[in-house]
């Protein structure tokens, strides 16, 4: 069996925290942009930035998502200082899995769960398990 030291548990915990925050940030930004509507012109992009400044709460979810994502990046840097890059970076793909699950489960986003998406999610998780279980240098 793998023996995992306390320090490794902290690293794994930080990695899972960072990946979860990345997914949560993405989902919040998507929620906010759904409410704002599609950006189809430079003018619409300007409107987005402008309303973000003069009426921050009107795109509250976008702001929330950006704040959560920024925290995720700070946590990610701590992960990088503790783990091999060749383990940490592939494991970042867990955030895809969390985003697809979150988008399906959050009623406001309501994205479909399909066999294909479940298969992709399963493959990524198998890959992450292999990477996580591989021998450390």
């Amino acid at each position, binding site marked *: 069996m793998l023996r995992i030291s306390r320090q490794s548990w902290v690293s794994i915990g930080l990695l899972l925290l960072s990946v979860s925050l990345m997914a949560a940030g993405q989902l919040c930004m998507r929620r906010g942009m759904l409410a704002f509507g599609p950006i189809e012109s430079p003018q619409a992009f300007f409107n987005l930035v402008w309303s973000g400044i003069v009426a921050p709460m009107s795109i509250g979810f976008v702001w929330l998502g950006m704040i959560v994502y920024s925290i995720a990046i700070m946590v990610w840097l701590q992960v990088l200082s503790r783990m091999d890059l060749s383990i940490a970076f*592939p494991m970042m793909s867990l955030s895809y899995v969390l985003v697809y699950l979150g988008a399906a489960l959050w009623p406001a986003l309501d994205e479909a769960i399909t066999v294909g998406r479940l*298969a992709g999610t399963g493959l990524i998780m198998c890959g992450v398990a292999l990477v996580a279980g591989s021998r450390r240098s």
Partner: protein
Amino acid sequence: MSVSQIFLVLAVGLASLAQILLKHGMTRAAQARAGHVWLRPLRQPLVLAGMSTQVVLTCLWLVVLSHIDVSLAFPVLALSYVVVVAYSAVSMDEVVGKRRWCGVALIVLGVGVLAYAA
């Protein structure tokens, strides 16, 4: 190759470069003892360079997505896992065995299936 295809290849390179810069920066930050552990990274030029690369990548990515279908572009971006793991093995003396390579291959395949299904 069209311009958007060149941009896509560039995006893979930038995504990989960003993580490599961040990793090198954080290795240095871990050696430097000054400052708070959560703020220390922001004093490292390599970390700031990595973050800037990520910002450029995001802009480039939006251009790519406006030309190429996400179901093709997304799996191609996942190739950056291969680039980064190869770099780690060759230049950062990380020991990458068969099992880890198989894991990376499954992840790239999984992203492909996920993008194709979406």
